[in-house]
């Protein structure tokens, strides 16, 4: 049995790329890891529930043949950067982008080639974003938009985004990935985010790729003292989607929120994997993930919290809730706590179940028809997740993305009808 998934196609592609000097060491490390280890199989603990074989078996074309530009998502603020087929399009953006070469010192500093998704990205990235918010500055809301054109064949793109917030700086990043139905492309973005002391970043991600696509993303964040990183991810699209967040609380009184919702319809596999390191004392972390599954589908949540010996008075919380709307859906939930400090408050919990019969009866006893009652409860489950997002524009974008999901799913997937 092969211990690795063959990454030959990706390596061949990597060999055609020209690499500037500032990116050479990152590229080399990624390529070496990919050549040695390939992509992990399910024998690797971190990929036990998510099989990447379909990604390695897919044939991706070299270049997108740009077809007509798809509709871009509605503007939520004033500043946006638009990537089409993984390439930054200045003509569609209204922020002067800084070249990734300016991020040379930061590149590869947080996303290491030991992480398979980061390694693949390092071997293959061609474009990306560098956002540098100077100390004390409030950058407001910036949108990072990714769309695909439905190129001649499925392509793979691996953007690398580097963000740095100086001391006390603030940023809200609304990061949306939209796709084309029926196209088996791969989107493999990697974020490297460093937050200076007291900086605050809200990172709202809406993953809405086409239902035949692969989305493998990873966020790597270093959070300095008194800084806050607040991530909310809606994982809704793709045939196979994995969203990894690696965060490290590096200074006292730093805070990390990781929340999200997964909408997993017929034929979809959605994986959220968090990997949080409490490395300093007096830090807090909050995680709440909600997954709704319909039809023949599978959802995964893996949440690791590592509390180092130095991280006294850590206050950590993790909750994972899943709602199964069909008998052919499956949820795998794996919390993993590793605690080396002795003065720690760390709790976690998981619930997996169908719609609550008592709630359903209460609604029906008021005259509300069964299907409508079901929809109300599914929407309520998701509303609870989305309502925690502080930024109004982002919350609206999320609510719109979530609204009507179940009604649409129910009408397209016959298996999804029974709770």
């Amino acid at each position: 049995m092969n211990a690795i998934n063959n990454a030959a196609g990706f390596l061949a592609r990597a060999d055609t790329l020209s690499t500037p000097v500032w990116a050479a060491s990152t590229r080399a490390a990624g390529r070496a890891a990919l050549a040695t280890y390939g992509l992990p199989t399910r024998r690797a603990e971190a990929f036990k529930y998510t099989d990447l074989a379909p990604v390695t078996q897919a044939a991706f074309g070299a270049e997108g043949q740009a077809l007509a530009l798809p509709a871009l998502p509605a503007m939520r603020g004033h500043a946006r950067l638009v990537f089409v087929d993984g390439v930054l399009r200045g003509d569609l953006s209204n922020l002067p982008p800084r070249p990734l070469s300016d991020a040379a010192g930061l590149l590869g500093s947080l996303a290491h080639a030991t992480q398979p998704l980061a390694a693949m990205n390092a071997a293959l990235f061609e474009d990306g974003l560098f956002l540098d918010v100077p100390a004390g500055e409030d950058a407001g809301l910036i949108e990072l938009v990714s769309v695909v054109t439905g190129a001649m064949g499925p392509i793979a793109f691996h953007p690398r985004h580097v963000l740095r917030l100086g001391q006390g700086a603030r940023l809200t990043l609304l990061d949306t990935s939209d796709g084309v139905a029926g196209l088996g492309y791969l989107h493999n973005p990697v974020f490297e985010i460093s937050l200076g002391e007291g900086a605050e970043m809200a990172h709202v991600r809406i993953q809405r790729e086409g239902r035949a696509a692969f989305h493998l993303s990873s966020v790597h964040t270093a959070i300095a003292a008194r800084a806050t990183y607040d991530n909310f991810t809606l994982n809704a699209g793709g045939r196979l989607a994995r969203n990894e967040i690696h965060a490290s609380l590096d200074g006292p009184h730093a805070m990390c929120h990781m929340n999200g919702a997964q909408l997993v319809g017929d034929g979809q596999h959605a994986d959220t994997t968090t990997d949080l390191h409490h490395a300093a004392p007096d830090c807090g972390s909050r995680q709440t993930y909600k997954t709704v599954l319909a039809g023949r589908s599978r959802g995964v949540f893996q949440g690791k919290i590592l509390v180092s010996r130095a991280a006294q008075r850590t206050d950590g919380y993790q909750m994972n809730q899943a709602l199964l709307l069909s008998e052919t859906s499956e949820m795998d939930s794996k919390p993993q706590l590793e605690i080396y400090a002795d003065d720690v408050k760390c709790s976690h919990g998981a619930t997996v179940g169908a719609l609550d019969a008592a709630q359903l009866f209460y609604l029906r006893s008021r005259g509300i028809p069964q299907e409508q009652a079901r929809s109300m409860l599914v929407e309520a489950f998701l509303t609870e997740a989305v309502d925690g997002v502080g930024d109004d524009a982002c919350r609206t974008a999320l609510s719109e993305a979530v609204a009507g999901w179940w009604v649409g799913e129910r009408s397209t997937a016959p298996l999804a009808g029974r709770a």
Partner: protein
Amino acid sequence: MLRIEGLTAEIDGKPILQGVDLEVPAGELHAIMGPNGSGKSTLSYVLSGREGYEITGGSVTFNGVDLLAMEPEERAASGVFLAFQYPVELPGVGNANFLRTALNAVRRHRGEPEVDAMQFLKLARVRMKELSMPEDMLKRGVNVGFSGGEKKRNEVLQMALLRPKLAILDETDSGLDIDALKIVADGVNAMRAPDFSALIITHYQRLLDYIVPDRVHVLMAGRIVKSGGPELAHELEAQGYAQVAA
């Protein structure tokens, strides 16, 4: 209005209702009293259509129609209302949205036009004032973080908005202080009309000081063992169920 004949029902193979006979004519309020475990709540759930109860015999007709053949939402739409002993919390469902959705579902069934958000708010405000409910209870999740008294008032508010023909009040007095009890009783009394009937299920006589029933029935071991006028409630209070039923 409501006719129950020889009704038997069981849960998980255990018989609970063992031949209930009861008739509630239009315009009358009837009380059902009984000790714990006599089948009071089961009767209310069977009438409103909750799953998990097996009807093994007998019949229930509501204005001549077979009630047991209807889905819970059809019963509600045709005028049956259950005020829950333990109202269910619905996190993430706004109370206003819930009330309006229910009201419109029932109005659609009656062939009445639906109400929009503004019209609903006007209607709800009037009723809420009568029930001394703060307006912010519309904005909260259904019953989420409500006190016991607030939950019961929210039940009466739903009844007042949906205007049922038959209300089943399941231990609506439990957990209420005397002021809340009066408010809730006023809400029920305001519904009195020639085409409104109620089945008031209670453990104690206290509620019946405020909602005076036309008839009182004693339910024991799944059967109506005695019926009488309002004075029967006082007898029960004074002498206990065993004595009165003997």
